């Protein structure tokens, strides 16, 4: 057998340095993995891996610290923005990011994220909205769509008794302290590229000390949605974007000047 040698100059795509060389536990087709890769690529491009401190949350991404190759701490359910505040206040020249699910951030940790944003805390929140609690087996989340079936809304979310889903990006965008709050989706290449750009902008906001930044990602959970990965991407596109429009909800004037 003849082995073909790949020359370094021929490599166009490889694992980012900020991503550890390990297998993840995410289900096949889950877009948590896409979000990880994008964040790692941006960190590499900015050359800030050495100054990163990540705050992992509770949920499927609880082991995010194993998948990224920089310093991490593990927060109690929902409290990541408070932990990030503590770290950033002690080490203002580091990049402090949280990586949180929708159950984590929009339910048990709603107060922590709202107040971190209100304080204009110079941290970045990566918010994965997959419309359910993934880790605990697909229960209703604050983001579950009206009529969406979950293990704890078996006949579909009834807004009469369970209330309405929360649009976190729109909500946080009302806060003066928030500088950059956007929603992106991970369902196709075009949107993935836009998501990456938003990650870059959010970290630039932090680099320049401009205040709180948050990128919400519409993400899939094929396992708990009971769909194939491809069907899940279609479901996201067809149903989630309608309730959670993509776009920029807050771009402070200082942030609008960032060119990347």
């Amino acid at each position, binding site marked *: 057998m003849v082995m073909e040698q790949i020359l370094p100059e021929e490599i166009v795509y490889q694992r980012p340095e900020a991503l550890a060389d390990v297998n993840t536990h995410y289900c096949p087709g889950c877009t948590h993995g896409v979000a990880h890769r994008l964040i790692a690529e941006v960190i590499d491009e900015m050359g800030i891996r050495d100054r990163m*401190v990540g705050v992992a949350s509770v949920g499927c991404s609880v082991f995010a610290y194993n998948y990224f190759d920089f310093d991490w701490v593990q927060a109690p359910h929902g409290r990541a923005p408070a932990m990030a*505040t503590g770290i950033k206040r002690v080490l203002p020249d580091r990049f402090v990011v949280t990586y949180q699910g929708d159950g984590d951030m929009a339910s048990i940790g709603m107060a*922590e994220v709202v*107040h971190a944003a209100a304080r204009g805390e110079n941290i970045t929140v990566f918010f994965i909205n997959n419309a359910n609690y993934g880790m605990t087996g697909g229960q209703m989340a604050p983001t579950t769509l009206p009529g969406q079936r979950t293990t704890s809304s078996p006949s579909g979310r009834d807004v009469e008794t369970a209330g309405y889903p929360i649009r976190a990006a729109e909500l946080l965008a009302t806060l003066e302290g928030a500088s950059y709050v956007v929603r992106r989706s991970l369902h196709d290449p075009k949107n993935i590229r836009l998501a990456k750009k938003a990650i870059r902008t959010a970290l630039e906001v932090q680099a320049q000390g401009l205040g709180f930044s948050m990128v919400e990602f519409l993400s899939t959970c094929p396992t708990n949605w009971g769909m194939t990965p491809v069907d899940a991407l279609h479901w996201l596109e067809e149903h989630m974007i309608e309730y959670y429009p993509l776009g920029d909800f807050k771009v402070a004037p200082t942030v609008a000047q960032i060119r990347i």
Partner: protein
Amino acid sequence: MARELLKGNEAIAEAAIRAGLQAYFGYPITPQTELLEWMSKRMPELGRAFVQAESELAAINMVYGAACTGARVMTSSSSPGISLMMEGISYIIGTEVPAVLVDVMRGGPGLGNIAPAQSDYNQIVHGGGHGDYHLIVLAPASVQEAVDLTVLAFDLAEKYRTVAVVLLDGSLGQMMEPAELPPMRPVKTVYPEWAATGMMGKREKNILTSIYLNPPDEEQTNLRLLRRWQEVEANEIRFKEYFMDDARYVVVGFGSAGRVALSAVRAARAEGIPVGLLRPITLSPFPYAHIRKLAERVEGFLVVEMNAGQMLEDVRLAVSGQKPVEFYGRLGGVMPFPDEILAEIQRIASGGLTLEGHPRERWLQRMNGKN
């Protein structure tokens, strides 16, 4: 060094600052709010971090985050606020990072009142958060002691990578007394190897976490914490004794209750009653062995607390039924007077000791006439 006249709460705040405190996070609650207010002025003045958090939950988790950098950090609160902090405390212990907590106790349960009480003994000493853990708990009885124990709390928290608590009641927090403050230490500029500070070109990544999905790993973690606790027990037990050399009866009380009891013991001595006072400084680790030894030579114990007999159970455990234990407590923010305690000492010295029944039951019966 100059002696200064300060409120307990303010003295603790200033002592922490001088011990090199780099970040304070807190939420207002009476009777500890002066501590937060002092920090809000002094910390920014010194270029150090101060955040008034949106809740005690957030405050303790800010402490947790900052503690993960290895910096000297603290928070303070009072009973209901401490209940909210229990989640974070369990995580801090589980992650093995150092932090200092000040609990200025008030009357409870529920919203209770803002008067001085010792109602959090069980919550703090026997752990209010989830999991198998111990906190180091220091109980001052004067403003000077509060200052000294605050500085010690930082050293112990760092030495054992755990949470050290300064536990006092509202009267000590509000009381003004002269105290000698420690010299000012600068904040750290070099962070420990284990900390999450960014790799900064120096090392591999650090992960600070308290999750061990594999049960044998969790067991190992628990065993490691327990072995470290054995070291704490071997090296850090502290207490003060008064009139103990020839004592036949021993009053046991901590903090303000111990302080009031000392007046009662002095009065009893003036009447010729051979009574001494044991005031535990470390409620955790608790001086079990010492009390067990005392039980061999004295006739009985009187535990005095500003609660319904929480430390009483630890004293009984130490005495192990060898000698009678009596109890006297005032609750809900009522302070005991020295003459009330003196009356209990007189009752005991005139033959009122018994091994029968539970001291709390006997005390409740005696309380029937009161209030």
